[in-house]
């Protein structure tokens, strides 16, 4: 088996909202049965920073089964390229490699929470 399932949950118990790198991405996001929420940003975007703060807050309010990741598209251009993301901030909700929702720009927390709960209820 090529993919060794990293025990991500253990990692997430300590820190639910984690910065995603290229390697952890394939292992844990694409292969994960549970939905993952990805925030794409860059280090110099204040808007992305604000959204990141917001996602951190949301991650604490949503069920444990949903994992939150932050992707710096300058640091991890291949992940951005994989999803064809060029603008930040952008939020993707994906499950087993499939994009369930794409949310662009500055958005109120309530809107993001609603999308997440819609998707969560579908599961």
């Amino acid at each position: 088996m090529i993919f060794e399932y990293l025990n991500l949950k253990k990692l997430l118990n300590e820190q639910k909202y984690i910065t995603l790198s290229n390697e952890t991405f394939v292992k844990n996001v694409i292969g994960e049965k549970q939905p993952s929420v990805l925030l794409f940003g860059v280090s110099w975007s204040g808007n992305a920073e604000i959204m990141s703060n917001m996602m951190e807050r949301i991650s604490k309010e949503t069920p444990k089964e949903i994992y939150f990741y932050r992707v710096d598209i300058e640091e991890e251009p291949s992940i951005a390229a994989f999803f064809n993301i060029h603008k930040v901030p952008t939020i993707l909700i994906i499950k087993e490699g499939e994009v369930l929702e794409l949310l662009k720009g500055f958005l109120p927390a309530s809107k993001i929470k609603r999308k997440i709960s819609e998707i969560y209820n579908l599961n």
Partner: protein
Amino acid sequence: MKKDVKLSNPTLDLLVKSASLSPNGILWLNQEGHILAINQALASQLGYDFSQFEPKTIFEVNPSTSFLSWKKRWKRLIEESQLTIETEQMTADESIYPVTMRMMLLEAGDQTICMALVESIVETNHRFKDLLEMTAQVAGVGAYEVDFVKNEMIITDEFFRLLDIPKRKNITIEETRPIFRERIAKEDFPLYLKNYELAISEGKPAEQELSYLINGKYEVFNFKIIPIQEEGQTVKIHGTIQNVGKITKRTDEMYFTKFCLDHAQDMILWVDEADKKISYVNNKLCKTLGYLNSELLGEHYSILVNKDEQTVSWDDFDEKIVEEGEVEIEMNFLTKKGKVIPVSTSTDRLDFRGKKINCTFARNLSKKKKRDQLITMAKHSLDQATDMIYWLRSDGSFRYFNDAFAIRSGYTRKEIEKMNILDFFPSITLEDFQKSWEKLKEGETIYNHELEMLVKKGKRIIIEITVNLVKVENKEYSSSVLRDMTDRIQKETELREYLIEIEMLKANAEAENIMLKEEIELESNFSNIITRDPNYKKVMRQIEQVADTDATVLILGETGTGKELLARAVHQLSDRADYPMIKVNCGALPENLIESELFGHEKGSFTGAHQQKIGKFERAEKGTIFLDEIGELPLDLQTQLLRVLQEGEIERVGGLKTLKLDVRVIAATNRNLEEQVANGKFREDLYYRLNVFPIYNIPLRERREDIKILVKHFTDKYSKKLNKEITEISPSGMNKLLSYSFPGNVRELENIIERSIILSKGKVLTIDSSLTKRGKSAAANTKFNTMEEMQKEHIIEALGRCKGKISGQDGAAALLDMNDKTLTSRMKKLNIDKRDYLKA
């Protein structure tokens, strides 16, 4: 013989003569106890020659009689005229034996004399003893008495005869033990001993039938033990033995029958049909239900059954047993402690000595029920399992398979039962199968993580299989657990493809990294906060915190710091984002227009009011109103604004109606409002109303790390806008910007870049010195030190003065009025090198 005592008496003579014929001993006595005469029989009773009878008084013949007691006896004789007493008589050889003495007073001449008829009790006993012995012989009963006080044993002749022990006069308890141990049958001896011990220790009587060896053959004896207690101590044991009969085939059979009954698997119960009383129970029943045999015999059978809980109708039961002679049902027994024990019973009706007996065999179902339950549970689990499970015989046929296997294989259960395992695994030959069977027999576990299995309609699935050998009642089966790996393998393949794609993209991206970076766009064109300076992080955290709360926000900060940008961010992140944010620049409006601008006016409300105007507040309904330069708002309008904030209501100028509004307020100012409040230029109550959540937008000089990135951002923005192709900034230009204090903040920087782009020729952006020399004083023209730089210089100077000494009274820390540790860490943070201050 007539004793020649004192007197001659013709009456006495006559009496003595006539008494010579009597077989009973008779003696005549006077008031003083003198023997007047005796007859022949008495003399021989006492072992004397009649002619030579020696005793002269009753006291010699009758040693227990004293003179005084004789006097009393005489007195009673006078009163009662006749008397019978039991006393003892002493013979010539001085042995004493018990006698009955019947006495009467007679008038013989002038004398009152006593005639006593003496009957030997021993004589009577002898006859009784003879009778007993005869009875014992006929009945075959032997008896003994053990006296623990005297440590003596009395044994009847019959006892010796029956038990075939040579007759001995004085036999001790100890001597009988080895005889009994040897001759009582092994199976009976422990109980015999136990009974004996119980009789001694607790005074319990016992009865036991045991086999006893007589002439090399066992005969059955009934042993009875009757202890006699005094003051809680067993002092004597009376025992009898009786020969019940020689052991015949029949008695053997009975013994075996009894043994079998007591050791039977089933509980056996006899109930008399007439009175429903228990007449027999076997050991098994007593043990299972916790009763003693004696506690049940004679009891009504209902003691054993839980009548209330029964599903059994007892009337039906009675009817059926009479009609059919047997009944088989399941019911519940009750133990002595009240525990319910499910049993399956079979009852027969039999005639026994004129009685109808219901003989019930009951089997305890508790264990069976538990086992049944476990089996059901196990079967259910197996069938519910997602893994396929089957058991094979050594020929490859199926002994068992679960639902998962049946479903996944696509065949019906009947079809599978006729199939062989090789039908499912075309890649496995019969030889392979046999080989692996041998391996299994050696205790190996066979595991294959990827095996192709053929299911119905020629479909192939990939399975993971684990096989073990299982032995059940000497038969061997292979037990296999299969997991369908098709999905997993498919997913793995997909993931593998993803990884390849990602790796390719990664390679591409690395090559095109720079290009890609340039392609990164910001989602919003007009409200982008560009920052990476850690000092600015607090501001962004505040925005995120307050955005979706609906609270009034007051943004403070110098001009050009981008207060509107923050206001927009708050609005966009709030639930009002779908409604507009209306901006009002309170400083830019003519004073006379501000009111109608904010609250609107009705047609004709003032000169020039040709039509109705909707105010900014109304337009911001459900959205946000951004009151920029709030510090410039005239006082009278501050009052009106306060009302709006407090009541959530406005009135159009010239209007009569009050309008209820749902508007969020964000206000901003570059003024020091507190100061304005102090100067009376700003209403204090409005200030507090607005100052719910203040955000201080820091000036650019306090976030210098952002200068570079802002330069890049504005260069991108304006070169695009102005259609210029600028890819670089001259290093000197960048240095100028980095050392400039930006009193006009980001807006100033933006203007500088815009102007520089216009002025730039070619691909390199240059910054004209004149652009960064604007300032309030001449000092601004030279390099203006930052706080950190000032601190660094100051600390270096202090260290120089103290010759590099940090701590102590003459150290730099003391000079700077700082803690030693704080100074050291500050030096580290400011990168102060030893050379710096030693040089100074």
